């Protein structure tokens, strides 16, 4: 189906942000939000494809898109990338109170605190000999592609607020997720797909819940919200025509609606109807583009094997392959969640499960992107919402509690130096002490790689210039840039 040529031309001619002299994001949104909020009666309309803010990007970007691999629940840094021989020696001894006094503690509140040494062996991999644990043999193979940051800190110690903090830069509900921010700033490269797509998988310890707030557009217009694609059922809610209606019939129906609306509009002259025409057009295109995208059975067998993906299984492996397909189709922000990493107990067993489900697919994703020449402009980020305590917790076998003062993440591609390790925690793996990277520094760095100066990317909300990086100072981590 096509929109009448004349209307299509008119829609394309109209700049998304209208005619006002727009210098900064904040001013742009002022008019845009107002327009969405008030009865939108100015002469602008929304094109199916949004081109981003005027003046964006601020500088030449290294990364065009982001694939964010959220290891939800909080994987232990002490069993992945942060090798602590001193902690090993002190295993079983009381945790020195100098570390823990006055610090926030989650489930270990009021309990005796003892050191728990690493529960696996580490090897050194790649040209620079980066420490990677035996839980991650496949990640070890891409050691030269990833930049390990061992000095992360965050501010929230419970899952829900910590995920919200990682995604929005604050624990207060109602703020936009980073995927929404980035799409709002840079616009979409796809005419058939939303710019912010979320995929989830399970496996591991009883998975933590994950709220749709994590991909909310917050106070940004709702078209920037993350759209969750589902492995089973409808890939996107209501994307399939009802039972008993073919795609052809659906096209006839949408055509009739468009014609009737256009006819009515000759009388009432409502720009909102033009916008609706564009929305129905995109909706119709999604009815074929989304199922086509989600069907990975057409991929060659060797690709499926490389990821360990089986069509339709909803696994992290399949989601990694889908991430590549979404990246190829111009989706700006692709967010994967694997939700089994909350290892209060049975850590060795559940690390085994989680790593088995995620390690190879992550290797495959990086390798596949590299082979296709896409890793250069795709930023891949791996990590949880926090790390885990150097202290023992025994909730069904040996495990660790939530920990926010030091944990590890890694970044790859998109302008990041591979093969390096950045920052360090103290000898017990408790506090980040060297080259500390706060969550807002991570955000600033991601935005920088995308060509955005985080300090100039703000939106007026409740009177304040709200930023993804928040009100405190944030710094681009220059040392890890390629």
């Amino acid at each position, binding site marked *: 189906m096509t929109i009448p040529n004349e209307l299509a031309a008119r829609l394309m001619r109209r700049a998304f942000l209208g005619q006002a002299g727009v210098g900064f994001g904040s001013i742009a949104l002022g008019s845009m*939000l*107002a327009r*969405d*909020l*008030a*009865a*939108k*009666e*100015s*002469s602008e309309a929304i094109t199916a494809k949004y081109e981003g803010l005027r003046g964006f990007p601020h500088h030449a970007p290294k990364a065009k898109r982001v694939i964010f691999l959220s290891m939800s629940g909080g994987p232990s840094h002490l069993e992945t990338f942060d090798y602590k021989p001193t902690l090993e020696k002190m295993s079983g001894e009381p945790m020195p109170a100098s570390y823990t006094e006055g610090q*926030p503690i*989650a489930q270990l509140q009021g309990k005796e605190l003892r050191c728990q040494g690493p529960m696996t062996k580490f090897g050194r991999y790649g040209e620079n000999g980066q420490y990677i644990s035996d839980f991650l043999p496949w990640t070890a193979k891409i050691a030269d592609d990833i930049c390990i940051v061992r000095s992360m800190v965050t501010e929230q110690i*419970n899952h829900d607020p910590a995920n919200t903090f990682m995604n929005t830069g604050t624990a207060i*509900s109602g703020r936009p997720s980073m995927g929404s921010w980035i799409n709002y700033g840079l616009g979409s490269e796809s005419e058939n797909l939303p710019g912010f797509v979320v995929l*989830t998988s399970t496996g591991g310890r009883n*998975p933590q*819940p*994950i*709220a*749709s*707030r994590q991909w909310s557009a917050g106070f940004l*217009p*709702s078209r920037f919200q993350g759209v969750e694609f589902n492995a*089973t*059922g409808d890939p*996107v*809610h*209501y*994307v399939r*025509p*009802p*039972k*008993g*209606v*073919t795609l052809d019939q659906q096209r*006839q*129906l*949408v055509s*009739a*609606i468009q*014609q*009737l*609306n256009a006819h*009515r*509009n000759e009388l009432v*002259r*409502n720009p*909102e109807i033009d*916008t609706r025409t564009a929305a129905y057009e*995109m*909706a119709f295109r*999604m009815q074929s583009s989304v199922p086509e995208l989600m069907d990975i059975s057409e991929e060659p067998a060797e690709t499926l094997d490389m990821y360990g993906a089986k069509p339709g299984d909803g696994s992290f492996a399949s989601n990694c392959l889908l991430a590549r397909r979404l990246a190829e189709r111009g989706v700006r922000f692709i967010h994967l969640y694997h939700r089994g990493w909350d290892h209060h107990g049975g850590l060795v067993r559940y690390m085994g499960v989680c790593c088995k489900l995620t390690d190879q697919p992550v290797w495959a994703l990086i390798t596949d992107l590299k082979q296709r020449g896409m890793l250069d402009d795709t930023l891949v980020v791996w990590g949880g919402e926090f790390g885990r305590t150097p202290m023992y917790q025994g909730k069904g076998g040996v495990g660790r*509690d939530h920990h926010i003062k030091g944990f590890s993440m890694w970044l790859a591609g998109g302008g990041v130096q591979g093969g390096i390790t950045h920052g360090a925690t103290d000898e017990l793996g408790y506090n980040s002490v060297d080259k500390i990277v706060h969550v807002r520094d991570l955000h600033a760095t991601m935005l920088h790689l995308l060509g955005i100066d985080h*300090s100039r990317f*703000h939106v*007026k909300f*409740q*009177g*304040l*210039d709200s930023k993804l990086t928040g009100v405190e100072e944030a710094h681009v981590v220059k040392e890890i840039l390629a």
Partner: protein
Amino acid sequence: MVLFPRGRVAIAFAVILGLTSHVLPEAGASDAIDFNRDIRPILSENCFYCHGPDANHREADLRLDQFAGATADLGGYQAIVPGDPAKSELVARIMTDDDDLLMPPVDSGKKLTKRQVDLLRRWVADGAKWSEPWAYVTPKRHPSPRTRDSRWPRNWVDRFVLGRLEKEGLSPSPEADRVTLIRRLTFDLTGLPPKPEEVDDFVNDRDPGAYERLVDRLLASPHFGERMAIYWLDLVRFADTVGYHGDQDHAITPYRDYVIEAFNANMPFDQFTREQLAGDLLPNPTLAQRVATGYNRLLQTTHEGGLQPKEYRAIYAADRVRNVSGVWLGATVGCAQCHDHKYDPYTMKDFYALSAFFADVNDEAHFRNGTNTLPARRDPEIWVFEDDENRAKLQHWEGKVKSLEAEFKRLTPPKPKNAPKNWKPEPLPAGSPTRAKLETIKGKLKTAKRVRDDLMKIGRRTMVTVATEPRTTRILPRGNWLDETGEVVLPAVPEFMGKIGDDSSSRASRLDLAYWLMSPEEGVGGLTARVFANRFWYLFFGTGIAKVLDDFGGQGEPPVQPELLDNLAIEFLESGWDVKRLVKLLVMSQAYRQGSVAPESLRSKDPYNQLVGRQSRYRLPAEMVRDNALAISGLLVDQVGGSSAKPYQPAGYYRHLNFPTRTYSHHSDQRQWRRGLYIHWQRQFLHPMLKAFDAPSREECTAQRPRSNTPVAALTLLNDPTFVEASRAFAERIVREGGSTPESRLDFAFRHAVSRSPDEYEAATLTRLLETSRKLYQDEPKDAAELVATGLTPVPNDLDQADLAAWTMVARAILNLSETITRN
């Protein structure tokens, strides 16, 4: 009025008078400058962040939000010398070419436009006249302006609207046709579409009193309360689930019924406020007043294992301050959690003192009791029944169960101290009197429990407020809950707004706060009245007189018509907070009755329709999109009140919820077709249909929903089974009741959906869709059977299925029309 107890009322009054002479949205080159309209927004946006109310973040010791600060001696020079731009450092610094001196600083990302620089310079030259923030100036009644056209205005509201339009050289739009009027009124006052016979009655009733009779009928409808509740529930963030982590259900639906009933009974708005904030503190509170106190329990809570009570006490306190200030004061006091407010005169101390009013709300049971249960245990809760008799019965049977259990325990041998885990009492010898007695009690207990459980099934639990010993409230330095060094504060209202009562030693209560919020003499009733007058205006005209509905502070926007807003506030106050009266005043006006189709010239001059030279048009709110389709199809179940309803929802939508895991089962009874405001409101996974049409998750106060227009909304209206089922039910109606010809049927369909007959083009387009579809379905009877079986509604077996399926396609087209889902 004690808003400005230090004698600032006189200044305040002068400001308002000053405003009456300015009519343009902003000052042109030749107009006199108005501080609040023209200057404060520039200073607030560009200067207050560093030179504003926040003492800890003030640069160069310069404060520009007050006249005294701006004109203070800074060591031989002043930022502003009234009347002398050449001597004013501020003017020099905004006009300099030197980037090191320029204000705002280059690295702030802020930059003044040439027009703004000119305005500031002219304002200083004119004497730098200052005025208090408009929102905190007591509203006063203003005389209606004289208008050139004396026939157009129907009431004083119209005289203000017309006076302003005339000054702008604009004319109001002609009155809308009667069909549009009844559609607009019915949607606005009940959230439902008018029935065709209601439209006919109104169109044919040429009596001059017809319009008012229609308004009165709609105001008296039980659906008026439902419509108003949709708005109120957004403000107070009403939802069926706790919000954080496991997002478990909690018990609160009787509160929603309370809100609906309060609006239907036209409860005075001050009473409505008092009952919600402090119904438990009223003398001998009624059941309804206790239910109303559910307000204090509506916030998000967590039941996550590993939560730290101190942390969540701080989170809950902040949540309550954000809500109470957003709802009643139109203020963002939440910004003062970590530092003094950057733009408004709220201090950190104000924030914590305001939170202290709620320090007595018993809300800690869930820190101790089991987590992860469904529903969450959120004592204190009470039972609510439709009638008092059952409540008394339940009380009786609960007591009975308790006493029987006690008696049973008394008669059973006690458990020895060192008893093994699986210890059971030795069975008493058969025929022993004790054993016989125990058997009798057992039987009685079984009956008592059954009766009790049956009663519980027809009753509902609801969270209420119970006052306890107030928790100590401290200022948390930088909002850090781990830091206990801050000053202890007692309940108090923001300092610059005055105080509650005299300096007596008794601790101010939530009830005191409620009185203070609503009293024009001893509190901020004038401000509250203005906040709500503005919101009612928004509900019936589509945009606020002051555009930002939840921020009347420096970063909001001053009202376009301050005198009109003042008079509406006074009207609301003087009527004794009579909501229906205020609503009637607005919808009876000629301004309300205008058409919404406006010439391009008017639309470009006033894109947001703040001058009201026309009516606004916009897509219906999410709940009404649903209600409208159900009403048109005849499926709507319009029972008022009750527990929440679960309509069809995509399978697996709750799969990310845990503790416990959730499976959603839609209701298979009448609840399936209830109105949108009763839909189960899952904060973390709001029903996708509500979400697609911009209903908020209700995590925070929402005074104004966005009105988006997205592909996801299009997919929902096209394919959500609720709308497909409504289409096939509508199709059945069309076929049965719409006569026998395609023409008469299309006429029937259009009159039900959009209250008019189709024109030739529309009829032809739909006839084509009908015929193509019918042919296809005749060839594919299986498809036809599938389509007409969507949903739970029984499939008619006496109708031709291919024909019904074809009409279903037509009905789908009609339910998707812009016109169908637009209020204009």
